[in-house]
């Protein structure tokens, strides 16, 4: 059943992929047999409640975490065998807001990071710093949460990596800046082929940007599909029940199959309304979406 629900994205053109990725911390399962498939060039939105395993998945992709089973690949590189090479391809915004050594200024930290990145684009870094209103003379330790996040975004983007892993990229930013940051990200994608994996609680603000969605629930990838498949297969149905009352049901599946399932219960579909991506993703996140 699980397999049928996953759109077959194939293996060949995935910039980021995991195979049976499993990670446990004691009794708690952070990831269970997760098979992410992020096609090259996609903006893949990873949704999940807190503790659903999003950050663990990111950490595994950077080889910061040794999986109990399975493996992770970035651009076809097995990260456990070739961690440094894989990380060279990745721009990462971590969950936490410590950007780096506190005594350094932002400018110094950027120059430090640049030393490790042959592809660092100093002119672009300057432009980003201006666009993000980041003062290079400010000490890293004195940054607010929002400014630390801007600095982390700059660190992730300025070397123009083919893969971006963004864990709550707009966390700590005020609403206007969030929009500006996402616009910057869209521009960034226009400048070169880039694959993006975003985890965020603010699904609405990236719903036009994302073209793929993965849903983690309790460490399991319960859904993974592209935007059009999500719109097609997760809908809100207004149904007339056998006793004549009307009810709303959010159901997952092709319209025909859903109608058949409902008919078996004696309910008749009156209307099938598409959901916006946010509602669709949230519906998949909740247990009660019947398939």
């Amino acid at each position: 059943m699980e397999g049928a629900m996953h759109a077959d994205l194939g293996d060949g053109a995935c910039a980021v992929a995991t195979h049976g990725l499993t990670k446990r911390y004691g009794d708690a399962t952070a990831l269970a047999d997760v098979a992410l498939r992020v096609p090259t060039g996609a903006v893949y939105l990873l949704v999940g409640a807190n503790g659903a395993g999003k950050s663990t998945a990111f950490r595994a992709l950077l080889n910061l975490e040794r999986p109990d089973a399975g493996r992770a690949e970035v651009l076809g590189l097995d990260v456990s065998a070739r961690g440094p090479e894989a990380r060279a391809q990745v721009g990462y915004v971590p969950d936490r807001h410590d950007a780096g050594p506190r005594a350094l200024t932002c400018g110094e930290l950027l120059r430090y990071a640049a030393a490790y990145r042959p592809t660092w684009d100093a002119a672009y870094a300057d432009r980003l710093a201006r666009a993000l209103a980041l003062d290079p003379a400010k000490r890293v330790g004195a940054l607010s949460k929002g400014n630390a996040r801007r600095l982390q975004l700059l660190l992730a983007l300025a070397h123009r990596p083919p893969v971006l892993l963004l864990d709550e990229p707009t966390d700590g930013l005020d609403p206007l800046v969030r929009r500006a940051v996402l616009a910057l990200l869209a521009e960034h994608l226009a400048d070169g082929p880039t694959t993006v994996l975003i985890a965020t609680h603010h699904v609405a603000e990236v719903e036009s940007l994302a073209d793929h969605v993965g849903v983690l629930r309790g460490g399991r990838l319960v859904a993974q599909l592209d935007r059009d498949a999500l719109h097609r297969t997760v809908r809100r149905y207004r149904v007339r029940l056998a006793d004549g009352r009307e009810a709303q049901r959010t159901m997952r599946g092709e319209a025909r199959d859903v109608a058949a399932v409902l008919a078996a219960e004696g309910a008749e579909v009156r209307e099938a309304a598409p959901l916006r991506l946010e509602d669709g993703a949230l519906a998949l996140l909740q247990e009660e979406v019947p398939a």
Partner: protein
Amino acid sequence: MLRAQLRVVLLALRWPAAAAAGLLAVTTVMVVAEWARGRGGIDFNPELSIIPGVVGLLLPIGVWRGEDRFGDGLLWTLPVDRRAHALARVAAGWAWLLLALAVFQAWLLALVLLTGGNVLGDQVVQVLASGTTLAPMGAVEPSQLRTVRLPAEPALWLVPFTAATGAYAIGSAYALGVRHPVRWLVGPLLALLLVSAVGAAAGSRALALAPSGVLETLMYGTYGFDTLLTARSESLHTVARLPSGAVAPVWLALPDLGHWVAATLLWTGGGLAALWLAASRHGERRRA
């Protein structure tokens, strides 16, 4: 990688370094003023190497400050082998430590020369005769003391460097290997206190005194931490009170160069081994 780490450590430590330089300047003024007022010059004294030792021990705090040591901070997500990266950071800190020490020693030498102190000459010292101990309050009979000539020991100029290196290796291993530094410091001390308390409650003098004995041996034993830091000159060198009421510097025993070499190898070797293990905690996660 090492160059980048040398740069970043220098930047991270510039304010503490500036503060230390300021302190040296103030000390210089004070020493010179004392000397100008006719007090004696200062001698080179291996006890002073306790300063480099303590600096070496604490330096890792500055070197690792602000790094998400056990998280996914910038340091660990850069495209280089992580254990090598961690060791490069440690090495960078060590390089600056040695440079700072060289400056410190040069400063000390200059000060000793300026004030006409004893640089490397022989010293005449009073030593407690073997088989006797110092009475409480440091009271001593003149008959217990013997006067000996302590030969010059140029190797003692190395003590600050080895002391700082060994202490820095241990401190770095601690900073890098332990997720909760405070817990790991307070925990064992509490455990020792507990043992002591249990011993006292049970009326077992041996058990009650065991923890302080352990600490004593660790710190001031023949191969204790103090031997690493000051070639034992700190713990062996004390003051005694003669019956006349005069106070005189006294050595409990003469420091032994062999003990110092052994202790240095022991502590530094142990520190480096621990450092390797600690850095390995941050290594690439290869599949078993």
